[in-house]
């Protein structure tokens, strides 16, 4: 279980407890947190669950799989610390993670 903070583009914060084994994307979708669309349902084939992760946390997360950066090229305003939230698996180690949502997903 990890407490994850989702911050919308307008600054609104949502803190939820997400079960281990779910993804950061699922944590948002299941708790009706706006700002993450996840059109493809977590298949790394749409880039609509894009989030920004702050430097300190970015380096702690499991590394990106092949293909995630290719998808991120097609996201809205990707930056160096962009991730697809469907590719971040929640575990106890992620307790306290903060992700920022982009202005929009599509």
């Amino acid at each position: 279980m990890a407490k994850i903070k989702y911050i919308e583009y307008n600054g609104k914060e949502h803190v939820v407890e997400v079960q281990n084994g779910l993804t950061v994307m699922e944590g948002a979708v299941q708790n009706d947190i706006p700002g993450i669309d996840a059109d493809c349902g977590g298949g790394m084939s749409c880039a609509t669950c894009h989030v920004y992760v702050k430097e300190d946390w970015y380096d702690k997360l499991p590394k990106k799989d092949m293909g995630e950066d290719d998808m991120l090229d097609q996201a809205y305003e990707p930056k160096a610390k962009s991730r697809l939230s469907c590719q971040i698996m929640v575990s106890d180690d992620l307790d306290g993670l903060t992700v920022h949502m982009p202005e929009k997903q599509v």
Partner: protein
Amino acid sequence: MIKTDVVIVGAGPTGLFCAHQLGIIGLKCEIVDNLDKIGGQCIELYPDKPIYDIPAVPECTGEELTNNLIEQIKPFKFNFHLNDRVQELTNENDNWVVKTTNGKEFHTPNVVIAGGVGSFEPRKFPTKSAEKFDGTSVLYSIKDKTIFKDKSVAIFGGGDSALDWAIELSNTSKVSLIHRREEFRGAPSSVQKIKELSEKNIINLFTKYSIKDVKGNGSLEEVEIKSEEGESKILKADYVLGFFGLIMQLGPIAEWGLNLDKKAIPVNTENFETNKKGIFAIGDICTYPGKLKLILSGFHEGALAARGCFKYARPNEKYRFEFTTASNTIKDRLGVK
């Protein structure tokens, strides 16, 4: 005006197999898709990627699956309306009037929406100033490459479209290629070629840069690019091209008065009809308890929706269930002995 039993919106695997099921039970249909080719996501997103969960097909690519589905519905000679999009749905005396962007009009008792997550549209620049030049000097696809001759062209993107056009246009234009990271996702041979052209100063290559602004008085004059660290550069540009892949937009479907749950259309699981009589939704775009976004689920949904269509297309006939192995009527429809 075209009269038909069913209009299918979307020519992906789900729409194609639904067409097959309609053909088997003796109904006619017309298929509309806004891409320029048949196959939907299978062709647009993963033509070369293997799929492992089609029943009785251990492995096939998106392209192979599409080709087989096209082959399977050939006997029915259904019409495809590609590069066109269903824009408007209105009800007239229990019939649906379906109007497309290209001005086609269908009259039909049934519409099957097999639209995936909506229609594919190019992802555009996030920069507000780019909108002013959209379609004139800020472009997301190329129809006539001769307009770029002897001009300065700034190309954004790191996939095959961006690389291929950068290479091609560098023959006759001054090309800058801008990408947000060092790695490109295009074919290795194209990446190699780009590096060579950059070393020979034929192409100006800027990696780890993205667009900041476009400027021009009347016509486009320059594009400003920025690095992650905030450093910016100004490039002369008569044209700015963006190749960031395609995004899926629900588009006009949202305007048809259908119930929506996020971006999906709730349906019953008996015949996949929506809240509107005669409008069915199948495949990724529909939702119901337990919905799986699998191609095989789309096939099942299409088969049941086809039977749902029969009721409205042939109100005075009773649908009779038959097996393709045993029915002579079906064999006639398939043109086999």
